Each structure stands twice: as structure tokens, then as C-alpha cells.
């Protein structure tokens, strides 16, 4: 691997810039061109363009020429490029779902696509950040469009509430995050990770307590975004209240971006703190958060009568499994998390996409009765939903299983066997609530009172197909993706070791 040189490296910035450019372009085009399909096509073109560059960077990172811009403040190593691709995938799926459902839901405002692209731009910046200020910028760019999107259905109280709640708590989280940046800066005297690592690992470093407080606040700020308990309270309400296409986006892209940033910080900056009383404290806090998330998310999901709300809690639960990978930190943990996030993006977006085909136009009617007999009335939809749910439950041969094995192996490798056991115990609970939907689809007779949504949308069908095929392919041939993650090295760790 070579150490990158140069300040402004356009190829490194390309994915984010292309997304940003296409966000502006779709916004501009929306003034003249009301055709939704056209705008979606433009958005998808932008995503594809960004993906080409991200894939190129990922391939370069494989061969040891990871690049970065602005010194080491904007990174394009394997971790950053891979998660950029995952974010792009999640965004593309959300674009397809939105294109297929917004009109029917009477939510058809042309700003949907530019807002998605802008938010994705923020996500890409977050996973590429090598500097706390860059990260903060990414976080805000990611969040602002999502606040608007969550309140997309302005005539529905739940959606308004979702937007407001997400905004207030998000602002609070940002404040915590900024406070964490301030403390970390106070401890290390730098904003960029590379210098912070050097400062923290230098002999004679004495501001351990301040650094730890900084780390705790950063963790709390990002913990909000990924919905780690006890910072998860907003998640079920917001995910449920927001229109389902928006939930699709939020549950996968926001989570990927925030976890990407969290993993990076955990594996570099705070891994440089001297182990011992202080160094061990931060992982200790994380262990408690992860354990609580696993319990709250899974038991919460078990108690929900509505399927969308159940899936909202299940999204919280998956933050817990990903937390295991953060604990494992290092290259292994990052590779495991990179795989898990890809699998999660596919299966979760797939299941939400399928949900839009069952629920009413006004985003109501997610009762389990709605799914009764779906296997008979729409066998393909039911099968796709079943695949995604089984994958979420971690049953082979689907991608979710491999992800689960990877993070659990990582947890054992770093001595968190107890937490791994808790994760598995909670997985058994998860099987119950996922199976409930499958059982309804395949066993129960459709009740006459409930009308099944007759809508069939081609773009949503495409999104579901991509998600299901991806879930199966990643489950059978996980090496295709995992090798790319595993071979790449963390650029900052490499530079620090030199």
C-alpha cells in the first residue's frame, strides 16, 4: 500500500460530487419536467455514475493504492468505498420504491429524488470522513433532507410527528456530537483522525479522561443515528410514521452511514487510547449499549401488532448485531460490518419495498391480517417477502446468516462471548416475530373484511427482485463481496504503522 499524496484529488471526491451534481440537476429538471419516471431515471443515472467511481476506488484499494483527499481528511480506502457502494445501493432501491409508489400514495412531489440524493451525498461524506469536522458536515447533509422526508405526508399527523420528533432529537444528537468533537479536540489538539491517533498514542498523553468523555459524546451522537438503545426511542415512531418509501431509505442508508463513521472512529481514534482502565471503559460502555439494543429491539419487535412497527423495532435490533462488529473493531470487524450492512440493506429494503405493495395508499393497514393468505393471492410477492424475512432472521442460505456468523465470530475473537450468546438468544426471539408474518402469508385464510392492496408496480417489483436476488447470491457466494472488504486495509492504521 502506498501513502496517498495530493490535496484535492478529484477521483476520491467523485462519488460525492456526482451525487451532489445530480441532486441539483434533478431539482432543476423538476421545474420543467413533471414526469416522475424521467426524474427517477436521472437520479438512477447519477447513482450509477457515482457507483462506477466508488467501485474503481474499491478496486484500487484492493491493489494497495488507497487514495485520500485533503491530506488524510477524506479517505477512499476499502472501507469507505465499499460502504459508499452500499449507500448507493440503498439509495437506488429507495428511488425505485419511491418511483413506484409515491403517485399512488398522493405524495408525488418532484423534490423526493433530489432530497434522497442529497442525503446520500451526506452519507458518502460520512463514511469517507477522516476528520471530525468533515464527519459533522456529512452528518448534517445526511440528516437535513431526511427530516423533511420523514414529514413527507404533511396531512397525516403521524408523519408530522415523525418529522418533528426526528428533527428535535436529531438536533439534540448533533449537539451532543459537536460537544464530543470539542472535547476530543481539547484532548488531542486536532480534528483529523491521523493526528488524533498520533496524539492519543503518544507516550506521556495524559488527557485520557477528556478523550474518553469526547468519545462517549461522539458515541451518543452517532448512537442516535443508528438507534442504539437507550438512544433508540425515536426510531419506532419515526420509521412507522414516515411514508414507507422514506422508511426504506432511512432504515438502510442512514444506518450504513452512521455505522461506517462509528466503525472508523472506533477502529482508529479511540483504539489508539492506551488500554487499561481508561481504554477499556469506552468498549465497556458500548457493550452495555449493544446488549441493551439487542434486548430492547428484539423484545420490542415481538410485542408489536403491526408489521411496519415490528420491522421498525427489528431495525433497532439489527443495530445491536452491527454493534458487535464495532466492538470487534480493527480490519476484521470492519469487514464483518461491511458485509452485514450490505446484506442488511438488501434484505431490509426488500422487505419494506414488499410492504408498500400490501399496505393502503395512505400508509395504513400494516396489521398482520393484511398478510393472511398472501401466498395464494400473490405468490411471488409472498415468496420474496419470506426470503427477506428469513434472511433477517439469520437462516441460511441467505445473506443475513453469513452476516450474523461474521459478527458473532468477531465478538468471540475479541472476547465478547457473553454478548454473542445474548445475540443468539435474541435471534431465537427474532425468529418468532419474523415467522409470524411468514405463517400468516402461508397458513392463514384471507379474512373477507380485509381488502388486499391490488397495486402492482414495476419499479417496486424491480427493487424487490434486486433485493431478493442479492440476498440469495450473497448468501450462497459471500466471497464475492467479503473478499473485497477483507483484502482492503484501513488506510489510517496503515499510515500510523509506518
Amino acid at each position: 500500500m502506498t501513502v496517498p499524496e495530493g490535496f484535492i484529488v478529484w477521483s476520491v471526491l467523485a462519488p460525492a460530487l456526482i451525487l451532489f451534481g445530480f441532486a441539483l440537476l434533478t431539482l432543476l429538471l423538476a421545474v420543467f419536467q413533471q414526469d416522475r419516471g424521467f426524474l427517477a431515471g436521472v437520479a438512477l443515472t447519477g447513482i450509477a455514475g457515482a457507483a462506477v467511481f466508488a467501485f474503481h476506488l474499491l478496486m484500487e484499494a484492493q491493489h494497495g493504492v488507497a487514495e485520500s483527499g485533503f491530506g488524510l481528511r477524506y479517505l477512499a480506502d476499502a472501507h469507505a468505498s465499499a460502504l459508499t457502494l452500499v449507500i448507493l445501493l440503498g439509495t437506488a432501491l429507495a428511488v425505485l420504491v419511491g418511483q413506484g409508489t409515491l403517485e399512488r400514495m398522493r405524495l408525488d412531489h418532484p423534490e423526493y429524488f433530489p432530497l434522497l440524493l442529497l442525503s446520500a451525498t451526506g452519507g458518502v461524506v460520512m463514511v469517507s470522513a477522516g476528520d471530525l469536522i468533515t464527519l459533522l458536515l456529512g452528518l448534517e447533509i445526511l440528516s437535513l433532507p431526511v427530516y423533511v422526508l420523514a414529514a413527507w405526508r404533511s396531512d397525516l399527523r403521524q408523519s408530522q410527528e415523525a418529522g418533528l420528533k426526528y428533527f428535535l432529537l436529531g438536533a439534540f444528537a448533533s449537539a451532543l456530537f459537536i460537544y464530543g468533537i470539542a472535547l476530543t479536540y481539547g484532548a488531542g489538539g486536532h480534528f483529523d483522525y491521523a493526528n488524533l491517533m498520533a496524539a492519543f498514542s503518544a507516550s506521556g498523553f495524559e488527557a485520557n479522561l477528556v478523550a474518553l468523555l469526547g468519545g462517549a459524546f461522539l458515541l451518543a451522537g452517532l448512537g442516535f443515528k443508528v438507534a442504539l438503545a437507550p438512544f433508540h426511542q425515536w426510531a419506532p415512531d419515526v420509521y412507522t410514521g414516515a411514508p414507507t418509501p422514506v422508511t426504506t431509505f432511512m432504515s438502510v442508508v442512514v444506518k450504513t452511514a452512521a455505522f461506517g463513521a462509528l466503525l472508523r472512529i472506533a477502529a482508529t481514534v479511540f483504539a489508539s487510547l492506551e488500554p487499561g482502565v481508561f481504554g477499556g471503559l469506552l468498549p465497556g460502555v458500548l457493550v452495555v449499549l449493544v446488549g441493551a439494543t439487542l434486548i430492547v429491539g428484539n423484545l420490542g419487535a415481538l410485542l408489536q401488532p403491526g408489521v411496519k412497527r415490528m420491522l421498525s423495532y427489528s431495525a433497532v435490533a439489527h443495530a445491536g448485531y452491527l454493534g458487535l462488529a464495532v466492538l470487534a473493531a480493527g480490519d476484521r470487524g470492519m469487514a464483518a460490518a461491511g458485509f452485514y450492512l450490505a446484506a442488511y440493506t438488501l434484505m431490509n429494503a426488500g422487505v419494506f419495498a414488499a410492504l408498500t405493495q400490501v399496505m393502503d395508499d395512505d400508509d395504513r393497514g400494516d396489521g398482520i391480517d393484511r398478510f393472511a393468505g398472501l401466498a395464494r393471492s400473490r405468490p411471488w410477492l409472498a415468496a420474496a417477502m419470506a426470503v427477506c424475512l428469513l434472511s433477517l432472521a439469520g437462516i441460511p442460505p441467505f445473506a443475513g446468516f453469513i452476516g450474523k456468523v461474521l459478527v458473532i465470530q468477531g465478538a468471540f475473537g475479541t472476547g465478547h462471548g457473553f454478548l454473542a450468546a445474548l445475540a443468539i438468544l435474541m435471534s431465537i426471539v427474532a425468529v418468532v416475530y419474523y415467522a409470524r408474518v411468514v405463517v400468516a402469508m402461508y397458513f392463514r385464510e384471507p379474512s373477507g373484511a380485509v381488502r388486499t392492496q391490488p397495486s402492482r408496480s414495476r419499479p417496486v417489483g424491480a427493487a424487490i427482485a434486486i433485493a431478493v436476488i442479492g440476498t440469495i447470491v450473497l448468501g450462497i457466494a459471500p466471497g464475492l463481496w467479503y473478499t473485497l472488504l477483507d483484502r482492503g486495509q484501513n488506510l489510517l492504521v496503515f499510515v500510523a504503522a509506518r
Partner: protein
Amino acid sequence: MISLLLILLPLVTAVVLLFVRTPVAVRGIALVGALITFVTATLLPGSAGLLTPWIPGFGAYLALDPNYAGGILALVASLVMLPTALWASLRVEVNPNRFLSALFAMWGGLMGLFLARDLVLFYVFWEFTLLPSLAMLAGWGGTQRRQATLKYLLYAVAGSFAMLLSVAAIRPLSGAESYLFVDLLAASETLDVLTQTWLFAGFALAFAVKLPLFPVHHWLVDFHEQNHPSGAADVAGALYKVGGFGMFAWALPLLPEGAVQAAPWLLALGAFTAAYAAVIAARQHHLKRLLAYASLSHMGLVAVGLFGLHLAGLSGAMYLLAAQMVTTGGMFLISGMLHARRGSFDADSYGGLASSAPALAATTLLVLFASIGVPGLANFPGEFLALLGAFQASSAAGVLALVAVIAAGVYGVNLYQRLYQGPEPTPVVDLRPLEVVVLAPIVAGTLWLGLAPAPPLRAFQADASVTVRQVQQAAARAEPLAAFEAPAVTEALAAFEGAAVNEPLAAFEEVER
């Protein structure tokens, strides 16, 4: 390559069947797929295995070894699956293509499960096979199918997830190079007794559910009672009782110290399961429930053989596992044929069928006798060796297990009497030509495993000796935890050197000659 083909052929057939609707085409494809798969299975012994990286960096390989004990089980399972697929294509009326698709998916999954020599791959097949098995019960089961499916799902998943924990943990904890059996075996020494015991417990829970053993067997009876009346899904279920194989192939050799700690308890459970199930079987009126309990009793004997941790018992357990695939599978097929004639599984509503259906009666008698362990037929060598192993470990367990063998005679002969003897209410049709074709492989398998036990036994013994060596080394290395001290096992180990081990094999070789 043959191994890979054997897994892929049924899976491809399963996918193709999903898209075929016309009954003739469904039958044709099922028949051709089954025949090709079976022929491939016969090429298995001695063929080359497969070893190629699957998830590089994670240490998982696509590793298949047809020459391990599992190869023989794969062959026998294919021998049973062939007539089962044929029978299902004749008897399943609602959505036969999907039913057959699930059946073929199970076939492929089972082949992978038996052939895999990488722990992660094994787990994937282990769990994958559950899905079609659930689908058959859920889609074509009886009126109580929902409850039966949920029960089966919960037991299976709770067990497998416990195993998943052990699977994920064993490599990082032992520091093995990969999840390949050989690498894990080499690294197993580094695990201390306590870790081994915990890991073994994870495996044991999963394997006990699928063996099944006494307290976690509740799913089994409902599973068989509720499955499709053709009995085809039951046969697949009988083949999927792979807990014993998992113990033999993975848990015992990899975690010998854990095995030594747990064996006495599991031995006792196995013996109790065997006796308990056999006694209950003798009181059953529902034909499938009776067969389910009989099969449970056989599985208790398998456990008894395994947890004696003795060469004869271990190889006998595998032999019994292979033999029960044929005999239990055959009995379920016959139950389906009886149901096709009378539309009932109530054993008491039959009687006197022997006079109008002598061929059916004769076949039943043969398979039933094999099932209850009559010498010269399939189950006997395995049962005998399993019991021998049990007696070496603990005579109390041996005696308890012997009750099962005696009770088997009672319920077996009694069942034959109830079905075929006595006054005949209404005559039935004797075996139709297609039914003869269906039962032919079963009869052949029964005779083959009964008359020529030496070659498979020798193969099983070669693999069992790895376990025995591991257990011996473990016993020599570690002091057992005081609370778990197991005199029975130590005695068994001492007896291992004795000549008793090789005598039965020699006897069978003579029989063969």
C-alpha cells in the same frame, strides 16, 4: 465433482419443478431427476472430493468428502429418496410440482449435509434443509399443521442457533486456520475443558433436537402425524434425523473433552429415550404416531451407541442410522400405501389384509422385521454394535436400551397382526406394479444392509477411530471436572483395547462370506 453434482442435481431439479405445471411433465422431470441423482450417488464411493475456498478471509471452504462416513449415508439416503420422489409424484394431488420441489430441495440439502467437511458449510446445509421440510409440513399437512409446524420450527431453530454459537466460536477460540474439519481437529487440543464443555453443549442441543432425544423430541410425533398422508414427507423427515451424524462427524471428534464430560448424561438419556419411546409405541393406535415413536426409539439406540464413546458403538450407531433410513422410510411409504387403500391411519380399522394383499403383507413383514432388528436384515448389525458399545460404557444403560429392543418385538409383531391378520372386513387391492417399483429399492436396501454389513462398517469404523483416539488423548491429558467424574467412560476406554471390539466385525465378515 461427483459430490458437487450430487448436491446440485436435486437442487436444479427443485428449481425446474417450480416452473412446471402439467402433471405429466412434473412426473417426468421428477422421475428423470431422481434417477440421475441416484445414479450419481452410486458413483460416490471412491470418487474425488472437492476443496475450494468459499469465503476467503473468513476461513470457510467448499469442502466435500465422499469418502467420509457421510458418503455412505448420502448413498443410502439417495436410495430411499428415489422411490420417495416417485411415490410423491403419484400420490400428491395439490400442487405436486411444489411438493416435489421441496422434496428435491431436501434431497440436495441432505447430500450437502452428509458430504460437507467444513463446519460452516455443514451448518448452512443443516439449516437450509429445514426450510423445505417446514414447507412440506406447512403446505400439505393435516388439520393441525399450523401448530405442528410452529412447534417443529421453534425446536429446530432454538437448537440450531445454539449450535451456531458454537460454530462461530470454535475457530476464534481454538485459533484454527479455517473451518475445515482437519484444521479444527488439529487445533482442538488448545481448548480447555470448560470451553469444550460449553461448545459441546451448543452442538449437543442442536443434535439432541434432531436426533431426537427425550426431553426435546416433542416436535417429532406431531410432525409425522400431520404430514401429508402419502408418507413421502415423513420419509424425508426420517432421513433428516441427522443429529447422530452431527455428533459422530463433528461434535465428538472436535470436542473430545467436552464429549467425555457430557457422554454419561447423554448415554442415560439415549437409553431412556429408546425404552420410553418403544413402550409408548406399543400403545399407539395411529399408524404414523406408532412409526414416529418407533423411529424415536431407534434414535435412542443410536445415541446409546454414540455416547458409549466406543469404537463398536460409534460405528454401530452410524450403521443403525443408515439402516433406519431404509426401514423407517420404507414403513412410512407402506403407511402411505395403506392410507391410499383405506383412507385411514387408524391401525385398528385394518385387519386381515394378508388374504387379499399377500405381496403387500410380505413386504411389510420384511421391512417391519428389519426395523425391529431381526438378524440378517438391515437394522440388526447396527443395533447389536450400538448395544455392545453401550454395555462397554455402562451396563445399566445397556440393559435399559435392551428393553427397547424387546419392546420393538412387541409393537412390531403386534402391528403386523393388527394390519394383516384376523378377519378381513373388505378386501383391498394388492400391490400395483408402480408400487412394486416404489418398494423394490427399499427391499433391496433392507437386504443389502442386512447381508453385507462389512464394507460400510469398515468405513464407519475408520472414521470412528478418529473420535476414539481423540477421546483417549483427551482422557489422558485432562483431569475430568470433579463434579462430572464419569467412571463408566473410563471403564469403556480401558475396555477399548480389548479384543471384544474386533470380534463382531469378524463375525459379520463371516456372514458376508
